Each structure stands twice: as structure tokens, then as C-alpha cells.
């Protein structure tokens, strides 16, 4: 068992707003091993984006509040890191790409300046001028260019960086930054990177901007990349292109990724493990193949059944009766019981079910008392 990269333990996140306290994330626990791609899937408002933003502590606090839980990134509790030290964890440790590529690049700067900023931050950390809190991981030799097994992590730079301690003249430094930036643009399959470097964000298409965001995130060589619905704002063709790119990149530079999406198909394609969220709770977690073929939670089952691509029959698409509970007034016990076909009286009693290992399949966990019976559902 390798040392886990990220462990999230009993993490709860509330939003305190005028109308009351909203429990956006409730007692979520999971772990990401080095080199694994973990997907989180769930419908709108189930707390998956909140979870993604909470890991590098990007949530505005207040209104967000983290009453309990731990986020251990390589053994360091991020919730205990003082605020002023947070920039040292972000970027080179945990990097993030966002939902809206349209506005994620600063409109006032050329692509080069934005990429250079990221590269410069990484370089400062590497040369020890601005110490990062997360030290670089064990190197992995990518010169052999073989596809690494899960567990090996990208830490060996894609490119050699500036030798430690050497000081460069500004013009030379700019040239070096330019070289780095070009290399990363090529990495995300941008044709004619020379021209792109001189353009402003508004001159690029959405897909192009998202590629540049990915290049920026990767140029910092993060141990963990969080992708918060990176393709949701793109149209379907561009979405496919970006996903193909990300899939290739995953093979090429086996960095750990937390991939957030509402699209079951996307997750199936990208992720090794998948977590299913419902109303702030992680209801099921396990290897993708297993969760998709043998769901052990009624919600997962219903979610898979409602996937239009899988539906071959006539008539209306099967849907789940009822609606998502109000996050400020969650039902007692299991949050899913009002909509669940398997619900029994004990499901209503607090505390609700916790994630328990499923017997017979390692790594697969579900939060249902009657997980054995899920297979009997339609």
C-alpha cells in the first residue's frame, strides 16, 4: 500500500447564509493514492464543487465554514495550515483547473505572461527561494517514456529546469521562461505555440483557453491536480477534444487527479476510482468498473439507470421520483431514504449509514444498510 497522497476524513462544510446553515458537504471520507485518477460524480448542488474548492482551501470563509474533518495532503493537515502559508501549498502541491475557461485567464495579460507566472512560481519553489510546504516527490524517470503504472507519480520534470542557485540575466531568464511556456503549450497539443504565446485570452476559443489552463496547471508540476468540471462549459466537440487530451496526458504524466463531473460517461472514461455524491454525502466509492457494473447504493443504481446513453427501451427515460432535499433541512438518518425503494424504518433513524466496505470486493465502499439488495432493484 503506497503512502496516500490525499486523505479526506469526515470532512463537513457548511455555508452560513442569511436563510440558515446549508450543509453542502457532510462527513465525506476518501483517499487518493499517488497516480490514481479519482472521479467524483453527482448532480447539481450535491457539493462536489464545494469539495473540490475546499481541498486547496479556496472556499471563501465565511460564508463557508469547515466545522469538522481533516484534509491530509501528504500527511499535512491543510485545514491547520495558517492562511498566509496557503499559497505555498497551492500550485506546486495542489493545482486546479476550473469550469469556466472563458474567465479563468486574466484578460489583461498575454498567454505568455500567464504561463510565465506559473512557471516562475514553480521555479522559485524548486530553487528554494520561496519554500513550498510540499516537498517534491520521489523522481520518476520519464526519459524511458514508458507508460507508468498507477502509483508512480510525476515528479521528474517534463523538462529540465534551471540549475539550482544559478542566477540568470533578465533577458536570458525571459528566454528560458519562453522555452518552458512553449514546451507546455506543445504538451497540451497546441499548434503554433509561438503565435499563441503573444495572444490575449479574448482572442482564443473556449477549448484553447481550457488547454492553456491545463498547461498552466501542469507547468507547476503539481502532485495533485483538481479538475472541477473542466469540460462542462465547452460544446460537445471541444469537450471530446479536451477529454482526449486529458486522457493522453494522464497516460503521459501520471499525476494524481481529482476529477469532478456530473457526466457519468466522462468519469467512466477518465477515472480509476469513482465516488458518488448525493446531498453532500459520499454514498458510494470504489473502482469505476465495479461501481458502474455492480452498484451497491440505490442512488448510484438510479443514477446509472437514468443515463440516456444506456437507455435502449421505448417510452420516457426512467427517472428518480422526488427531488433533492433542501441542504439546510436534510432528512434524518440516510439522506436518500425519502426517494429510496429499499427504505425501511431504520433508515430514518440518525445517525445514517456510514461508508462501509462491501464484502467481497476490496476498495469498494457504500453507505447503505441494504447494499446486498441493491442488485435486486430494476
Amino acid at each position: 500500500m503506497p503512502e496516500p497522497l490525499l486523505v479526506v476524513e469526515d470532512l463537513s462544510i457548511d455555508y452560513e447564509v442569511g436563510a440558515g446553515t446549508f450543509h453542502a458537504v457532510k462527513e465525506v471520507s476518501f483517499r487518493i493514492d499517488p497516480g490514481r485518477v479519482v472521479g467524483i460524480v453527482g448532480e447539481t448542488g450535491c457539493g462536489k464543487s464545494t469539495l473540490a474548492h475546499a481541498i486547496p482551501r479556496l472556499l471563501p470563509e465565511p460564508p463557508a465554514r469547515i466545522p469538522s474533518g481533516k484534509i491530509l495532503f501528504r500527511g499535512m493537515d491543510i485545514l491547520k495550515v495558517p492562511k498566509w502559508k496557503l499559497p505555498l501549498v497551492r500550485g506546486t502541491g495542489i493545482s486546479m483547473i476550473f469550469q469556466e475557461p472563458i474567465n479563468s485567464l486574466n484578460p489583461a495579460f498575454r498567454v505568455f505572461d500567464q504561463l510565465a507566472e506559473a512557471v516562475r512560481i514553480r521555479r522559485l519553489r524548486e530553487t528554494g527561494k520561496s519554500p513550498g510546504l510540499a516537498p517534491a516527490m520521489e523522481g520518476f524517470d520519464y526519459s524511458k517514456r514508458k507508460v507508468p503504472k498507477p502509483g508512480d507519480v510525476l515528479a521528474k520534470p517534463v523538462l529540465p529546469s534551471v540549475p539550482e542557485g544559478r542566477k540568470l540575466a533578465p533577458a536570458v531568464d525571459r528566454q528560458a521562461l519562453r522555452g518552458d511556456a512553449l514546451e507546455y503549450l506543445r504538451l497540451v497539443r497546441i499548434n503554433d505555440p509561438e503565435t499563441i504565446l503573444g495572444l490575449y485570452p479574448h482572442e482564443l476559443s473556449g477549448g484553447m483557453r481550457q488547454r492553456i489552463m491545463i498547461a498552466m496547471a501542469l507547468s507547476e508540476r503539481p502532485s495533485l491536480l483538481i479538475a472541477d468540471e473542466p469540460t462542462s462549459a465547452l460544446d460537445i466537440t471541444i469537450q471530446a477534444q479536451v477529454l482526449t487530451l486529458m486522457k493522453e496526458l494522464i497516460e503521459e504524466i501520471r499525476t494524481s487527479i481529482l476529477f469532478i463531473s456530473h457526466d457519468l460517461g466522462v468519469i467512466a472514461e477518465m477515472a480509476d476510482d469513482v465516488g458518488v455524491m448525493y446531498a453532500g454525502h459520499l454514498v458510494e466509492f470504489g473502482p469505476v468498473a465495479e461501481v458502474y457494473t455492480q452498484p451497491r447504493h440505490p442512488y448510484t443504481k438510479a443514477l446509472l439507470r437514468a443515463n440516456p446513453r444506456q437507455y435502449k427501451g421505448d417510452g420516457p427515460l426512467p427517472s428518480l421520483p422526488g427531488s433533492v432535499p433542501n441542504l439546510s433541512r436534510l432528512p434524518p438518518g440516510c439522506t436518500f431514504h425519502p426517494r429510496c425503494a429499499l427504505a425501511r424504518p431504520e433508515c430514518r433513524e440518525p445517525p445514517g449509514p456510514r461508508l462501509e466496505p462491501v464484502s467481497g470486493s476490496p476498495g469498494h465502499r457504500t453507505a447503505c444498510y441494504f447494499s446486498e439488495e441493491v442488485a435486486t432493484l430494476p
Partner: protein
Amino acid sequence: MDAQGRTVKAGASTTPIARAKAFGRWLRSGSLGFYKVMRANPLTLVGFVLVVLISLAALLVAVVPPITTALGYPVQMTPYGPNDLLPCPVVGNRTFCAQPPSVEHWFGTDRAGRDVFSRVLAALPLDLAIGFLIAGFSLAVGGGLGLIAGFWDRPGTVGAAVSLTIMRVTDVFLAFPSLVLALAIAATLGRGTVPCILAILLTWWPYYIRLTRGEVLAVKHQPYVVAARAAGVSEWRILFRHVFRNILEPLVVYLTMDVGTVLVVFSTISYIGIGVPPDVPEWGNMISAYGDYLLIYPWMVIFPGLAVFITVVAFSLLGDGLRDILDPRSRRALAQAEASTTAAATPAAPEA
């Protein structure tokens, strides 16, 4: 074009002439938006030229006489001294000191026989310095405080308390019309140029705080700010590079337009009579002193008024153009419009 310009600049140009030519090419290429915007926007060009001329004239008027006097060869930049009493023509037993504009006295003379053109020109450095000093100081103070108040305002933190204090103090100042407050302060401090400047200085910055804070609040929740934070950029760097750079545009535009407004307010205070002493040449002062004779001797009032007007218009036009230059979108659009027209006229240069 950009890459080409850069290679030309860094490349083989060895002789000074070749380097100068390369610099000229770089200047005309798309990299320098300023040049293109000026050419594409005639009104901005007018504003820019006027501002340059006005500033140059002010500099000459302020700098040349003292230097030449020190060197022993005094040179006046104005045709007559601002307070020189010229001999008045006598017709019969009456003297006519107030002469209409003539070849000798372009803007005429006033009732004491002083040359109005000389006085208008002599007032230029003072008025311009006041405009820039007050607007610049307000931008520095108000802009700085506005950035702080807008950026660190998360409830329950020290920053929020600071932000709240700044904004409430601002509200106190904004509760009075700034002109009335400035008048009150000027009246308390006593008559004179310096008290008058101080009075406006003290009342001018709250508007900048309001403007800056509002802009910061709008920009700091943009996804690119969150993205920068996620990339590990420090808060100060985010504040200046990502937030400040994106609110610079409205601030600079407001500043250039404000230079004119300051002049008007300063003139108003002088006009009411608690500003500059009457012997100091200042536009507002002149308008106020000669205002009573508007119908009989209009030139005494019209020309100082025109000076205020032209200065204000020049800065406003320039400010309008600066918005285009600071915004990469319109800058690039203008540059491309320009490039397409020139490309149609001249055959395209081979790619380097």
C-alpha cells in the same frame, strides 16, 4: 508580427542606424498599441497633442524665466509681465485701459491695463500643477485605501474592520458636497493659494475610494482571480497583478477627466473670492475678477474661460483614448483595423 518585432530587436542589428530602424519598426508593429490607437482615433490624437502642448507650454513658462535669470540673460516666456501695468491710451480727458484684442494684445487688456494673454499664459503652470497634484494625490490615497477596503473585506477579520472604518470615514466626507466642504475648509484656513489647494486635497479623495472599492469588488470574484490563487500566487501579487491591473482602466480614465474638474472647482473657489489673492494670475481668479464686466469687456472673461475649457477637453479626450489603450480588446481591434488598411496600401513584408 510580434515575434518578428522581437527577433528584429534582439537579433543582428549591430550598427546604431540599423538598431534605430529596428526600433522604429517595432514601434509601428502591433506590440505598441498606443501608436495604433492614436492613429485610429483622431479625437484621442487631438487630446494627446493638446495635452502635450499645454504641458510643454506650462513647463516653459515655469522653468525658463528663473533659469535664464540665474544665468544673467532673463528671458520672459510671456509677452508682458502678468502684473505689468501698460500705458493706457488717452482720448480727450478719458483714459481707456481696457483694450479689445489687437495684434499687440492678442486677448486684449484688462481695466488696469494688464495684458490678458500674458496673464492667461502665466497662470498655466499653477493651474496645471494644481490639477495634477490634487487628482494624483487623490488617486494615490483614495485608490490605495479603496484597494485595501475592497480586497480585504471578509466579515469577521481584521481586514473587515479596517475596511469598515475606511468606508465610514469616506461616508462622512461624502455627506457634504465636496465644493461646500472645500469652501468651508478654505475659509477656515484663510485666503491664499496653499490653503485653497489643501482644502481641495482634503475633500477630493473619497470619490476615488468609492470608485476603486466598487471596481475591486467586481473584479476580485472573477474566476481568474480564483485561478491565480489556486496557482499559488500570493495575495499581494494577486492584488496588484490581477486585481489592480484590471481596474486600472476606469481609474486612469477617471483621473484624466478629474484633472479638468479640479481646475473648475479651484476656479470656483477663487471665483467666490476665498482662494487665490487677486494679484496672482489664475484662471478662476481672472474670471471672478472680470466677471462683472462680461457684457462691456467680454474678452477679459472669455479667454481665461476658454483656457479652462480647452484644458478640460484635452484631458477628457486623452482619458477616453487611454481607455482604449489599456483594454487589450479594443487595442488589438484598433491595431488590426489599422494593420488591414496599411496592408492594403503597401505590399506585405516577407516573414522574418
